[in-house]
């Protein structure tokens, strides 16, 4: 099966980014980036399907020059080929352009399956997979937690989450787009040496502007007016001291509050 998996290079989830002076973006300088976690699950699943059904896995990302690090991780994990759509202008933050860029690249790849994580940790929209499917006129299923492929019949049986503990089993025709939910299978460790070795592997580079110049006129339909830090609900009382003191104080407060 020829599988394409879409990744996004996002700010590290362990740090709070600094808001830029104009308050409509964040300071990229000095910020550490990582592969969007749901996309890691998508890669893991793609590699698993390759190990069962053979074929190849191609990783694609849209983003500025630094986004190639995401593809290094993909190579380190075992992806066969990586394509970087270089977008220095919008830096991978313009959803419609991302879809168009990746969509045009994928169209030429003639693949069976396209995977992406359920949402990107930076914009938390969860739109990309569906928008890509719409662009490519392919069926899409979101929040997938299990895939059983029947490449011979050109179908897949997938299980998707419905919420409240409910799940649904569906049959989907190939080619299709699936967005992968957390935990589809355990993420394997990527050794540092593998990443070091991956840095010397060739990544195919395509310029986003060259790919779709007419899209330049399209503004981002979701415009950030202002960024701010969430206000502390103000009601968090931090209890300090050594562990026994903390415990005693908390129990006291809970008794006072009538909960205990």
């Amino acid at each position: 099966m020829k599988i394409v998996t879409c990744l996004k290079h996002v700010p590290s989830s362990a740090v709070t980014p600094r808001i830029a002076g104009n308050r409509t973006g964040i300071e990229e300088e000095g910020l550490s980036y990582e592969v969007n976690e749901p996309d890691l699950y998508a890669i893991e699943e793609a590699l698993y399907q390759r190990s069962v059904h053979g074929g190849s896995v191609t990783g694609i990302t849209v983003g500025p020059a630094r986004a190639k690090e995401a593809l290094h991780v993909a190579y380190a994990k075992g992806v066969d080929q990586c394509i970087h759509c270089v977008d220095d202008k919008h830096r991978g933050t313009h959803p419609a352009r991302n879809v168009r860029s990746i969509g045009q690249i994928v169209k030429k790849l003639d693949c069976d399956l396209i995977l992406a994580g359920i949402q990107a940790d930076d914009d938390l929209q969860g739109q990309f997979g569906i928008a890509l499917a719409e662009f490519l006129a392919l069926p899409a299923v979101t929040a997938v937690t299990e895939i059983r492929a029947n490449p011979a019949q050109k179908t897949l049986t997938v299980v998707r989450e419905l919420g409240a503990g409910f799940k649904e089993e569906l049959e989907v025709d190939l080619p299709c787009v699936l967005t992968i939910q957390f935990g589809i299978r355990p993420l394997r460790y990527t050794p540092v040496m593998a990443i070091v070795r991956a840095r010397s592997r060739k990544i195919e580079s395509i310029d986003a502007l060259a790919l779709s110049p007419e899209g330049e006129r399209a503004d981002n339909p979701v415009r950030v007016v202002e960024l701010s830090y969430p206000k502390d609900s103000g009601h968090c009382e931090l209890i300090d001291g050594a562990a026994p003191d903390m415990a005693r104080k908390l129990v006291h407060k809970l008794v006072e509050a009538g909960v205990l």
Partner: protein
Amino acid sequence: MNDLVIPAREVFRHFPAALVAGFYAVALVAMGVFAYGCWLRIAKYRAGRPLQHPLATGHRILRSARLIASHATLRKRDAYAGWAHALVFWGFLALLAGTTIVVVDQDILGPLAPGLQFWNGAFYSWNSLILDLMGAGMLAGLAAMAVRRWCFKLPKLDYARADGQGAQARRLAYVRDDWIFLGGLLLIGITGFLVEALRIGADRPPFELWSVLGWQLANGLDALGLSATAAGTLHAYIWCLHALLALAFIAYIPYSKAIHVLAGMASLFLQDPLAGKRLAPVANDAAAAGYRALEDFSWKELLALDACTKCGRCHASCPARAGGWPLSPRDLILDLREHAELALGARSWYQRSKARTGDRIVAGTVVKPGALWACTSCLACVEACPVAIEHVPLIVQLRRSLVEEGALDSNLQGVLEKLARCGNSFGEPQRSRGKWTEGLPFRIKDARKEPVEFLWFVGDYASYEPSVQPVTRAAARVFHAAGLDFGILYEAENNAGNDIRRAGEEGLYQLLVEKNRAALAGARFRQIVTTDPHSYSTLKFEYPEFGATYRVRHLAEVIWEAVGTGRLALKKIPQATVTYHDPCHLSRYTQVTEAPRALLAALGLRLVEMERNGANSFCCGAGGGRIWMTDAGKAERPSVQRIREALQIPGLKYFVVACPKDRSMFRDAAKSVAGGPEVKDLIELIAEALEHGPVAAASRESEKCA
């Protein structure tokens, strides 16, 4: 008979020519079989890759000759086996020499230079005497070994697998091999003496009094009623039997346990004294890290596999095995050996792998991940092995290939990710590394900003683990009270990487080394002192390869030096019976066993050793990345077993440790044992002494420190 009887004998006494010819023919065949077997073995070794560093053969010859001659590695902690083996070894060598003398004299000098023949006269007599005595010694040794094997029921000779897998049949094959070897040698020895006795009984040449035992045996046979002629006839038969046995034994050597004779000596010759302490890095251009298949092994490692005699010392000393994990260093070596036999084409009669294919891949298949991850890299196996097999480097190489595949314990995975992000295994921010210093009544110098004599490399656990921080502060107070000019790197310090390297994540290790190297290069100091044995050993042995070469010592060594030179006076603390647990990385790795003991004595404490102490110390179970792994063994934890060992000391007050991980592990273990002793760090005791008593005997000039 002549008047002038020259001591000598006719080798093929009264044998028909056909028999002699037959003997030579059989001998030739036997040699051929032996050579073929050796050739197969050598071919097996050649399947391995070349060594990374050239061998410095010069001093090795002397070193290994001394080791082998003295049997030091065999006699260590097992005098019985050591001396018995020495008897067998030297006896066999003597007899081999004796046979060689005959061959040279009769088969070479005889036809080619009869005038040079020497096996006669006084030489002959002395030769006979010595061989008789040595032969008897060999038999005595063999008998002692037989008794040991049959009667002593030693646990280390129990071949049952640590992981409970596999059929018994193969193990019985080993037992058969053992008895054939032992029995074979015994029979050869006995028939040898019998041949001698029969010959002497038949001819009674007077000079054969020199063959003391042979003569007495001949008398014995006489007494049993054996006539001279009968002896003469019997002699031929027993001679043939002896010859067949001996030749069969020679032929059999490369196909059996007997290969250890050659492989063991070769292994001792090739021994790396820093095995396990200084691991081999991964080549920059390597396609993959670590050993996955047999051809990744070096020829030395493949050879070492053949040196194993299943003596069981590694098996008995391994804490993972004792804790019920599926790891036995012995089984590891045997599994690899058997698989190598199958896959690389050597042939042995008694070691057959159960694998159906000769597939050369071993990581994760022949050696299971559960076994590999159980290792604490304590080096007990390497230290105990009499034939210098280096188990731990193999385990690390195999682990490296598992890490390549990303197949790790999930907790370990999380820790490695934290280390990559923050430089410490706790996932704590790097900038709070120096927070433990808050609350000290003095400021600790920042070695990045001002020059210091001693750079104190604090270590992860000591910096971040709340239960260990009091000891770290005590150490700071010791430094201070001892008047040492010291500083730390604060947040520029990263985990030294020792356990990460041993967990198989070489890339992350090199990343950490590079960070530390840069931090050390940017600081000004004369020498490094540590309170963390794990950091100590990697800084000392492994960092130089990456360009960071410094003098590294443990705080105990520095304090003892100060006490020993009179610069520092330690007040005695209240008397108590204590025992000292040598940390693996302080005893086996860096061999610092004296300073802590000297300090305990100087403190006025009564030290009673546990049975396993010094280089034979029993690991707490936290090394090699184990402290970050979650799988439990089937038996009691090694740390609990160790506490029980300590509790055998009557009136024990303190269980003294000198490593932060030991402290954590043993405090935890002591809680689960009724009447568990109080676990104290050596540094805490020194701090007590320094703070309650007079401080420096001399002034606090930092220059006076060594």
